[in-house]
């Protein structure tokens, strides 16, 4: 079919469009190290390295060669999955990141779920009751949620639900193969913490997107033909409001990633965020650089998926 063909070429074009963005990300990340005042060999060898080790690394890096030649070499290595070696662990950075990915993926997915479950009803209710007290309360909550630092909220939740009430574990993480319930129990507070901040952002855009749709003629028609409130709000309005909501979910994903780093520290979750914080404390720059690249790639990928999802929500969008 012609439209399928258009869709395919659109997907292909969007995929191709992410290449320059990722290339620029790589150039920015590479320049950080090579254009900053310090000596790259020294930074990459770490504080404990001997003079000989630094010299050996300087030779290996070929620092006297032109910038773009070194960049091209490094970039090709990155493309083949070689992100360099950790100073502290002596292992490859990609291996470390893959090892630590599980908890971070679980945390971000559950946080995303929590934020949607919180934000969509709140935003829909606020739009439906626009200008009334329910709306003001919901949007007041959203501004507060948006202003709460992730780690402060985390400690407040730990204080009430774990220390005072003793319902949930204070910290820690259990992998999924130790059973679903222990796994989930340890992730409830972290994903709520992260989800609430993200939810504030989504609730606000849900409300304004819903308001826009509710003012349309076809909504008046739907009401006039006696459609119930729930199908009207959910099927007609929400589906039409989906595009801006999904867009903000995508843009806000960067915030979620930053939040993962902080949340894993609060709850002692051994994910990529915790790896980053340990790397900061140990001055393990190759790990920091690798994490920045991987997280940025994830962010770009999520936004690619968001772009591709528009067609699902709005059949009028043809590519």
């Amino acid at each position, binding site marked *: 079919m012609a439209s399928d063909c258009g869709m395919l070429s659109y997907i292909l074009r969007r995929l191709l469009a992410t290449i320059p963005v990722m290339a620029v990300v790589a150039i920015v990340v590479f320049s950080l190290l090579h254009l900053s005042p310090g000596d790259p060999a020294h930074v990459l060898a770490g504080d404990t390295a001997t003079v000989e080790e630094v010299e050996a690394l300087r030779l290996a890096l070929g620092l006297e060669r032109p910038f773009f030649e070194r960049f091209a070499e490094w970039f090709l290595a990155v493309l083949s999955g070689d992100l360099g070696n950790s100073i502290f662990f002596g292992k490859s950075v990609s291996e470390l990141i893959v090892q630590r990915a599980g908890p971070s993926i679980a945390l971000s997915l559950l946080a995303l779920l929590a934020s949607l479950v919180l934000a969509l009803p709140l935003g829909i209710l606020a739009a439906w009751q626009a200008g009334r007290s329910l709306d003001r309360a919901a949007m007041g909550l959203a*501004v507060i949620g948006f202003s*709460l630092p992730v780690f402060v909220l985390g400690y407040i939740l730990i204080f009430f639900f774990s220390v005072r009430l003793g319902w949930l574990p204070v910290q820690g993480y259990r992998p999924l193969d130790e059973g679903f319930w222990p796994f989930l129990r340890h992730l409830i507070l972290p994903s709520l913490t992260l989800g609430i901040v993200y939810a504030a952002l989504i609730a606000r855009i849900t409300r304004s997107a819903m308001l826009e749709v509710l003012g349309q003629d076809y909504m008046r028609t739907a009401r006039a033909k006696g459609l119930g409130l729930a199908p009207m709000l959910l099927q007609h309005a929400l589906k039409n409001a989906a595009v801006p909501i999904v867009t903000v979910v995508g843009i806000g994903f960067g915030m979620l990633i930053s939040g993962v780093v902080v949340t894993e520290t609060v709850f002692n979750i051994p994910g990529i965020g915790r790896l980053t914080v340990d790397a900061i404390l140990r001055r393990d720059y190759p790990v920091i650089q690798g994490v920045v690249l991987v997280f940025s790639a994830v962010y770009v990928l999520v936004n690619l998926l968001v772009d591709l999802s528009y067609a699902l929500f709005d059949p009028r969008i043809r590519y």
Partner: protein
Amino acid sequence: MSQAVSSAHVQAPPGAFGRIIRHPAIIAGSLILLVLVLAAIFAPWLGTTDPQRLSPLRRLRPPSATQWFGGDLIGRDLYSRTVYGARISLIVGLSVAVLSIGIGLVIGLLAGFVRWVDAVAMRIMDGMMAIPSILLAVALIALTGASLSNVIAAITVSEVPRVARLVRSVVISLKERPFVEAAVTVGTRFPALLWRHVLPNAMAPLLVQGSYIFASAVLIEAALSFIGAGTPPAIPSWGNMIAEGRVVFQIAPHIVLFPGIALAITVLSVNMIGDGLRDALDPRFEGR
């Protein structure tokens, strides 16, 4: 992020000033912020002691009549540290907002008017915006070392692209407006064009964006200090205080809660001003 999108084409309608000074959220937010600024300036005279002075008797003490917020892990007065901590957050917020708007304005104007700059600068900005802001700042601080000025610089670098994009979009939409075309046709010089037409139209969205950058810089500084990549531990910043209280959170939650609440109130007040400004400067957002 979303604010950048939503404030993209805000223009000050007539009577905007009147709406600003009457807007409840702006009044409330400004009052809170004023109290915080006064507390930061007059910190030494607000019943505080030296925020660095150790007193073993105060270690982990809960709040009391003489030590309002109690003592921290090594026996420093938490109330004094919280009041002095306001200085760091406000300095970082203000510096980052001013610097990133200044730099972003220049890049955005150049990109809006000069085609080849547009192509190069905007690709770089896109790449930088794809790096989550805390991580970009972490990498920069890992390279340059932790100091207050490096923290400000690192957060500024991650905020500049948003401002540049915003200014560029204002310039590009203005270039197509009849009054600008007319001004160009009658031979208005470039500086006059900038001063009389472009900057006044960029003011409103930049004001909104600036307040959101302020709030986000305060949050990022605290998060950086919390994960150990921010202000040096010797400086009493709220993020540092929370990081120190982390290990004893279960027996002495007040060490985390007081700076945490101060942080949340600061960010909330600035966000209220930002939301209010957006409402007041753009009638499209009225009641939204």
